[in-house]
């Protein structure tokens, strides 16, 4: 028997958006709700091409808004379909109330989100303001760092979502990844379909066995039902790791929930998410080490559920850490949203490693490797317990 690994490799030059579309095709998705918004649009354009060419047998639903897009996939998933949609920025905001419904109904929807800044002022460029606003919606949230990882993660996300019965979002850098052409190795599609077998779910509408979905809950039950979402989401971390390992055994690529670079003997660690932040942080680790600073970098690949134990373990014994956020938690105590999460994870475990909150790359303000070297230098100089708005002109 030949395995996927022994077969000839198919490597294409794809943007992360096209990689997402190829993953949707490989996953044999049944229903795709389509509404255009930059920088997401080329995903659904490519999927429409696949459907038109007969390469994907899916129902494409052209809806009138993102609120309708999410509502349409909620309905289709409730009817038992494997579904997909994609959006960015204002589109994700418009979906917001339905995001809670998707997790409350425990529907395994998968959505791609090339992350983009929010209005006003209008910006088509990338940052993570949109994704961070979905923090408490009950969705599994991956943040990928390469087109290859976008492809692999969307396939993994279907398996995870259909196992734990929760929706999953695969986010990545708007423009800096969504529109960047890079190599992507594609899997054999038959192999992907064996990896993603169709399974029966308890929460599917069937005329022969009627159930009620989206029912009213009084104070005597509401709390328990929402607690089940919490339990399922926290418990999904283990499934995310198992599926990632199984994917690695089948297709030869796996990522973990955190990616680390030279952390083994590091004194100072930068925590980042997304392709541009981590890619540049990684380069900066090498540059800082040449300057005699024992630097390391960590990438948060899974934001929800938050891998708190792993982060805490990595940061427990270093001299100091910084978190680079591409979003602002307006009016909050910590500048960036993920810095606040990391600090909470440490505090809950009684760890008091000094930390520095860095906000950068807002509205795609250019981030340079040199900026990340500066962060390591700041950490070495003992800077801590404050917020630095990098790249800001004052």
């Amino acid at each position, binding site marked *: 028997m030949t395995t996927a690994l022994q077969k000839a490799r198919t*490597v*294409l*030059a794809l943007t992360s958006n096209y990689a997402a579309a190829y993953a949707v095709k490989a996953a044999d998705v049944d229903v795709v709700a389509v509404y255009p918004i930059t920088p997401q649009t080329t995903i659904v354009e490519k999927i429409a091409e696949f459907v038109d060419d007969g390469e994907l047998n899916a129902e494409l639903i052209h809806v009138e808004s993102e609120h309708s897009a999410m509502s349409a996939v909620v309905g289709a998933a409730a009817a038992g379909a494997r579904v997909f949609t994609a959006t960015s920025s204002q589109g994700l905001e418009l979906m917001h109330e339905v995001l809670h419904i998707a997790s409350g109904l425990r529907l395994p929807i998968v959505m791609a989100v090339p992350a983009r800044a929010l209005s006003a002022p209008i910006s*088509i*460029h990338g940052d993570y303001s949109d994704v961070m606003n979905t923090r408490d919606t009950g969705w599994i949230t991956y943040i990928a760092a390469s087109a290859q990882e976008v492809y692999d993660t969307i396939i993994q996300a279907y398996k995870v979502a259909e196992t734990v019965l929760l929706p999953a979002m695969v986010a990545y*850098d708007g*423009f*800096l*990844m969504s*529109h*960047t*052409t*890079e*190599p992507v190795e594609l899997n054999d599609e038959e192999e992907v379909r064996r990896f993603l077998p169709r399974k029966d779910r308890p929460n599917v509408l069937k005329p022969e066995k009627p159930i009620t979905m989206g029912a009213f809950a009084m104070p005597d039950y509401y709390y328990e039902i929402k607690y089940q979402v919490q339990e399922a989401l926290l418990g999904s971390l283990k499934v995310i790791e198992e599926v990632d390992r199984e994917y690695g055994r089948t297709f030869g690529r796996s990522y973990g929930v955190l990616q680390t670079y030279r952390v083994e003997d590091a004194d100072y660690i930068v925590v980042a998410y997304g*392709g*541009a932040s*981590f*890619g*540049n942080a*990684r*380069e900066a680790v090498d540059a800082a080490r040449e300057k005699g600073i024992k630097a390391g970098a960590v990438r948060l690949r899974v934001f929800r559920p938050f891998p708190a134990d792993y982060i805490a373990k990595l940061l427990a014994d270093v001299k100091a850490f910084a978190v680079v956020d591409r979003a602002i938690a307006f009016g909050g105590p910590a500048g960036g949203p993920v810095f606040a999460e990391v600090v909470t994870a440490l505090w809950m475990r009684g760890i008091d490693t000094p930390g520095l909150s860095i906000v950068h790359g807002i509205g795609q303000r*250019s*981030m*340079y*490797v040199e900026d990340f070297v500066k962060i390591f230098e700041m950490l070495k100089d003992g800077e801590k317990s404050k917020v630095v708005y990098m790249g800001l002109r004052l």
Partner: protein
Amino acid sequence: MIEIRFHGRGGQGMVTASQVLATAAIMEGKYAQAFPEFGPERRGAPVKAYLRVDDKPIYKREPIVEPDVVVVGDQSLFVSENPLEGLKPGGVLVVNGAYKAPVKTYYVDATSLALKILGKAIVNTAMIGAVVKATGIVRLESALAALGKYFTGRLYELNAQLVKIAFDQTKEL
């Protein structure tokens, strides 16, 4: 790693040129990364695109500030900005039309060739031929094969012809 920065105007297709060359490099088994720097998306506005090619995986995702090669699709850009900014010592300029610059320069009359063959002043594919000739970053056959991923039918044939003619006519100034 070779880093190339493309300067053009919206509608000239310089973003596509960077993608075709990245695709060609990937088809040769190399690692490549091509991405645009969009300002307002409109015809005529200055546009930059970046291309990195390496034998190793590429992690860096910053704009290219010290390119090995600068490609200029429209000489009027020398008036409004400095495309040569940050060009590495010994770096190369590939330009549409003879332009006297204080660096090693290759040129081709891309506009005339595009008008003659396509009937439109879309210079990107001619500039692909020029870049391949000037830098050898990929083989001509790879560039033509990659072009087939972006254009089909008669449009492919005309553009492939344009790449080949531009390749032949590109000269060092």
